[in-house]
């Protein structure tokens, strides 16, 4: 059989490479599978269930499947719900502002003023708080903030106080900061450390004073990282139950406390679901808004 090899080879090698491509496509699909399964089982499905649950009703302390607007109308018409919503947003926003400002000098120092080695150690030390339970860290504030605690004892020596810090909004903010400050410092440090130093030098070179350079050049360059840090800070504070409960005294309640209270009083899971859905929507708006602002490009 005198079949010429040359023409036969081309189509076969073509189909071979096509098969190879299909194979690698399949491989990539398989790689994606775990995250897809995980997300649909433990995130999307519960989310749908949560939304559905907010339309259920409770009869004789038992949740019954239904589709009624009752829970929504009830929660939306209650002043305490809106007070709680406003308080939670207010406290989380204040905490975010304070944390972003308090973190900045530390992050700036770590990014610009110390050696790379020192920076690595500092970031390691900033991770250490996460090794202990958040609850333990919150309880340890009792010793410091209590009426007979460390701070009031020190203030007493100079004839001040005692100040009540536990079971106040101040306590809540301290708790939020405990949760978010190390993370925000780390995120700020990374985004500052990635700034091209030559741009900072260029600003000096063009007559920009150091303080003005921070506002005019450093912050715009670090914008993306900073917005992401702030969004994280807000999300963590907004959804936190521990700080407003143990350090803030739970009165007036923030939304997470409201959820617990609603569930406890008469098994009102559907109404708690309403609060949870409102929280989710709020966080979605903040997160998407933040990310959109972070990656917004100038119009050419």
């Amino acid at each position, binding site marked *: 059989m005198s079949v010429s090899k040359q023409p036969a080879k081309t189509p076969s090698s073509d189909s071979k490479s096509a098969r190879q491509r299909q194979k690698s496509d399949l491989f990539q699909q398989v790689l994606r599978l775990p995250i897809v399964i995980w997300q649909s089982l433990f995130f999307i499905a519960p989310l749908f269930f949560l939304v559905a649950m907010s339309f259920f009703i409770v009869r004789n302390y038992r949740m019954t499947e239904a589709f009624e607007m009752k829970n929504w109308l009830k929660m939306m018409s209650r002043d305490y719900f809106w007070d709680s919503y406003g308080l939670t947003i207010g406290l989380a926003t204040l905490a975010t502002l304070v944390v972003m400002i308090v973190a900045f000098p530390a992050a700036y120092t770590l990014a610009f003023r110390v050696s790379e080695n020192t920076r690595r150690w500092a970031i390691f030390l900033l991770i250490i708080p996460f090794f202990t339970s958040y609850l333990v860290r919150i309880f340890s504030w009792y010793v410091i903030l209590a009426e007979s605690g460390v701070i009031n004892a020190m203030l007493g020596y100079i004839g001040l106080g005692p100040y009540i810090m536990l079971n106040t909004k101040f306590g809540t903010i301290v708790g939020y900061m405990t949760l978010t400050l190390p993370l925000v410092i780390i995120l700020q440090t990374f985004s500052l450390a990635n700034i*091209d130093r*030559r*741009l900072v*030098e*260029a*600003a*000096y*070179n*063009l*007559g*920009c*004073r*150091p303080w*003005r350079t921070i506002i005019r*050049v450093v912050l*715009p*360059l670090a*914008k993306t990282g900073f917005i992401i840090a702030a969004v994280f800070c807000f999300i963590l504070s907004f959804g936190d139950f521990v700080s407003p409960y143990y350090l803030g005294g739970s009165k007036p309640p923030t939304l997470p406390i409201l959820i617990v209270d609603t569930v406890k009083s008469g098994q009102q899971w559907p109404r708690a679901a309403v609060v949870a859905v409102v929280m989710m929507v709020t966080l979605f708006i903040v997160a998407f808004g933040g990310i959109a602002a972070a990656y917004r*490009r*100038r*119009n*050419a």
Partner: protein
Amino acid sequence: MADALVEFDSVVKRFGDFTAVETMNFTIDEGEFIAIMGPSGCGKTTTLRMLAGLEAPSEGEIRMQGRVMNNVPPHERDTPMVWQSLALFPFLNARENVEFGLEMRGVDVAIRKKKALEWLDRLEIGEFAERDINSLSGGQKQRVALARSLVTEPKILLLDEPLSALDANLVIRMQSMLTRLQRELGITFVYVTHSQSEAFAMADRVVIMSRGHIAQIGMPKDIYRAPENRFVAEFVGRNNIISGTVTSTSSKVVTIDGNLGQFEVALAGDHQPIVGDVASFVIAADLVHLSTTKPKATNNIECSLISEEFIGSVVTLFLETPDGSEFKVQIQERELSDMDLKHMGRVFVSWESDRAHFLGAG
């Protein structure tokens, strides 16, 4: 003549144990285009950064118009710099970048906008004023960076290898634009580069640096034809350096006896060679005659042809001398084609005594 704008007085710069710049003394005149050139790590960029105040000298003084600048912070100087990376602010558009320096000086919004647009027009990129920096081409960005530095009308402009990222055609165009600008504005340009062609094409004077020292300062032609030492001779151009023992000397000519024979070198400057010393001289590759028969000239070497390199009309031949060292010759391609040289073929190089340049001892 012009006055000294900048004086380096015994300036030393150390980074830890490393000495980047060592006892530097030189002055830059007002309105001068000076190039600082050298291999990487020679201290040229450090010198420029000291002028901008981004590094402080470890010892010595830098004066500008008589004022000691050592402790003047960068933002209080008027020494704008054009960075190799351009360092344009990505969050500002072209016009806003140019306005930056004016804004820092508290110039009124309307005036600074007008001035920025004027400069962008002057550099022929007015139409891109409102464009995002990242949407501009390399050459356009380069012009924005220049406009940004020049808009405050400084007395001196510092340039740190500004053309090294551009392609060859653009480099030539930017070179002529830079020289034209410098002449028109009459301000001092200090231009750091590792490129000999850029330095020689544009500068009035060139400073050659090596390992933190100044190896030579002079006009491009002098540096090219009369290198003061072995480093400059090797760094600049295509030079052949030949060493030997001084066998006789007069006020005009010195005779050097080496591995490759006996050579006569015309003396210029204040060299006073001593008989018996080891000395060397330079013969530039383009000042050599080439022949296939033994020439009459005293200074000649018999070589064999190793390889050749075409760069258009000029050809560089790489020859091997009897002691195995390399000898470079540059001739016109037209001349070469008449000679019919063969690979490894025998060829004679020769030159007149006054073409060679005496380097001194060593």
